[in-house]
């Protein structure tokens, strides 16, 4: 059962398929929770993962990022283009905003962080230690890391959690701009974000039944 998502208008056939999954299955703590996920995602699109808590949004994102091993199906994704942001900020409290970004620029081998700071309204805060930032400012710093990475596939786990409406709008704008520039984003959120060209995937439909889960050798047959 292949759930091919409709290609958004304005993207021709020549557009490269950035991410392709075929009947993907994920396990968490050795227990199959998702199966049969198939989608194609073209450049310039944003995919929002929906579903109740515990349905496996984080697990799917981690599998896409390569942090969890692929359990079933096939996955085509350019790992050299993946920038992952988990629900933790990965911000060092002892370093300033600028030092935090400078570090990630060094890791990703990209240079200029000034334009990124400006774009996210962080220039004024550049010398402030990260422990003095508010939750919204920290999240902006996390987004700045994605921009600094200069990578095209963003995998975002709850980027809007614990943010006020203003910060949420900023997150949506940054993601929108990224997709408009040809990038791809897959994110999980409970909110309706004002992003153009957005597709939605309800993970509730792919909850694994134990029948089609990975066979557990310890459940094979009864033994005395």
């Amino acid at each position, binding site marked *: 059962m292949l759930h091919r998502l409709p290609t958004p208008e304005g993207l021709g056939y020549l557009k490269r398929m950035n991410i392709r999954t075929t009947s993907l299955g994920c396990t968490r703590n050795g227990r199959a929770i998702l199966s049969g996920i198939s989608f194609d995602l073209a450049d310039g699109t944003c995919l929002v993962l929906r579903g109740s808590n515990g349905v496996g949004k984080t697990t799917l994102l981690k599998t896409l990022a390569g942090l969890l091993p692929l359990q079933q199906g096939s996955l085509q994704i350019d790992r050299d283009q993946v*920038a992952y942001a*988990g629900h933790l*900020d*990965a911000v060092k409290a002892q*370093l300033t905003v600028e030092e935090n970004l400078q570090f990630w620029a060094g890791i990703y081998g990209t240079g200029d962080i000034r334009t990124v700071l400006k774009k996210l309204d962080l220039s004024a805060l550049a010398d402030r230690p990260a422990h003095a930032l508010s939750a919204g400012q920290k999240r902006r710093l996390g987004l700045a890391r994605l921009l600094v990475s200069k990578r095209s596939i963003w995998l975002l786990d709850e980027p809007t959690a614990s943010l006020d409406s203003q910060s949420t709008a900023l997150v949506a704008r940054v993601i929108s701009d990224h997709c408009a520039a040809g990038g791809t984003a897959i994110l999980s959120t409970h909110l309706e974000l004002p992003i153009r060209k957005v597709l939605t995937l309800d993970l509730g439909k792919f909850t694994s039944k134990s029948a089609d889960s990975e066979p557990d050798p310890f459940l094979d047959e009864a033994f005395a």
Partner: protein
Amino acid sequence: MIALFKRDIMLAFRSGGGFGLALSFFLIVVMFVPFGVGADLALLAIIAPGILWIGALLACLLSLDRIFQLDFEDGTLDVLATSPLPGEAITGAKAAAHWVTTGLPLTLAAAPLGYLLNLPSEAYFWLVASLLTGTPALSFIGSFGAAITVGVKRGGLLLSLLVLPLYIPTLIFGAQTVTRAATGQDPLSTWAMMTGLSLFAVAAMPLAAALALRVNLR
């Protein structure tokens, strides 16, 4: 890789804890030995090489859990694992930074502390030489232990239990080098063996640590 190395050193200086703590601990251990065994200078001269090596080893052990734990807790390791850096580069850079912030200062502090324990004058050069090439082994082997226990809550004690047995050969060769120098024997062969061991640890442990880290990030 250099960025990670630099940042770890910067963090060690910033947070204060890791850097000064190891040195203070080393000083206190050395200070406690005369309290325990008496102030007989002749006796102290005999046990000084062992005390200095064990003190340095324990001081090194103190800060091992910081190598990965903090980055694990705030999600940095997840992001690093998806970055262009290979796993071995992450563990290698972090172990190297640990050495610069603990092994190196301990090496420098060892000579004056040796004087407190009446270490014979012939042994100072070899004390510094053995610690200089031996403490990298402590940091790199320790980083492997830290990578294994990173997912364990309050894993400090477990970390010591796992890492200390792995330190045995380094300790034996290191302390033996200084003892030989102090008693007028040739320390070069033991020093060479310890340095070889250290090189092996620097080359191989990042691989093992990266393997363990990968498992723990799942």
